């Protein structure tokens, strides 16, 4: 069985400071890929200070494992800045893993327009922004691989804004694949549905749909905060 290698290729993994993105970045780097670890460093619901610290930690980890990685701290809402950084630093961009995302665990009755829009801005428009910037690079190279991260939330899981954003990326990826086929280029866009529950973020998901009303009545905060150790960034 010959190993799948990525020597000489460059991958951008958004939201790679934690959780799934971090794991994707490490495995790509272990297979010879140069990886740009993008992470704003904000909390899981998109709030909090953007320090970039988590991206630096993953870069250091990859380098300690013998891989090649650099950090980028821009928001996926500014995809051009991320892609410009990738191409300026590494000269090419072969793979974009759209993994960054936020989750604000309001139940439907508590979901506000502001929260809805913030979720759509990061999870859906963020993919638009990154791929809009990456696309000309793919076309010039006549090659590219794009992966978007959807969610089992699209089947219905009590987080309407998140689910809508994660259903949206499916239509976006399908449309990008249509564009690539039209151009007859070796550009592939595919969709990943990772588990909704892993590590300790089940606590957070329980709050979305299954939190006992007693917990809410007790004044438990409903907005996510930095106190969550849950790797929902994906």
């Amino acid at each position, binding site marked *: 069985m010959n190993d*799948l290698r990525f020597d000489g290729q460059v991958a951008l993994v958004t939201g790679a400071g934690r959780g799934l993105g971090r*794991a994707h970045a490490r495995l790509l780097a272990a297979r010879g890929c140069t990886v740009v670890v993008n992470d704003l460093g904000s909390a899981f619901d998109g709030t909090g200070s953007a320090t970039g610290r988590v991206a630096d930690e993953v870069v250091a980890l990859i380098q300690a494992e013998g891989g090649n990685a650099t950090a980028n701290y821009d928001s996926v809402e500014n995809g051009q800045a991320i892609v410009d950084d990738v191409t300026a630093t590494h000269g090419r961009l072969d793979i974009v893993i759209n993994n960054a995302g936020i989750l604000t665990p309001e139940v439907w009755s508590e979901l506000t327009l502001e929260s809805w829009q913030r979720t759509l801005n990061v999870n859906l428009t963020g993919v638009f922004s990154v791929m809009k910037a990456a696309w000309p690079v793919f076309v010039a190279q006549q090659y590219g*691989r794009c*992966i978007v991260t959807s969610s089992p939330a699209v089947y219905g899981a009590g987080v309407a804004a998140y689910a809508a954003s994660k259903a949206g990326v*499916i239509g976006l990826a*399908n449309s990008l694949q249509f564009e690539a086929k039209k151009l007859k280029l070796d550009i592939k866009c595919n*969709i*990943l549905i*990772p588990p909704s529950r892993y590590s300790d973020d089940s606590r957070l998901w329980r709050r979305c749909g299954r939190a006992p009303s007693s917990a809410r009545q007790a004044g438990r905060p409903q907005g996510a905060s930095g106190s969550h150790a849950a790797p929902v960034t994906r």
Partner: protein
Amino acid sequence: MQRLSPDKVSAMVVWLAHQDCQAEASIHEAGGGYFARLNWARSAPLFATEKEGVTEAPLPENIRDGEATLADFAGGDHPISGDGSMGAPNALEQVFGHLKSAPEQ
């Protein structure tokens, strides 16, 4: 919960990112060492555009009475994402063929 750790998902991502992978607009579930591919599924087509030789607008009752057809996925097909044809060449051909064969009003 360790069984659902993030590193169990990355194998799928890395394969989809490889130049040998020819998948297009595929949807894959991945977690805990479990992998599956999702398809669109379209039921057998329900035609309700004519009655006793006269073409007319479908009625809600046609839909109600067509439940068995609409639940028949064995008689349907699987639209393909990203191919630009609404994924439904067979069904559309059937619709157009059906309309062509229907008498003009």
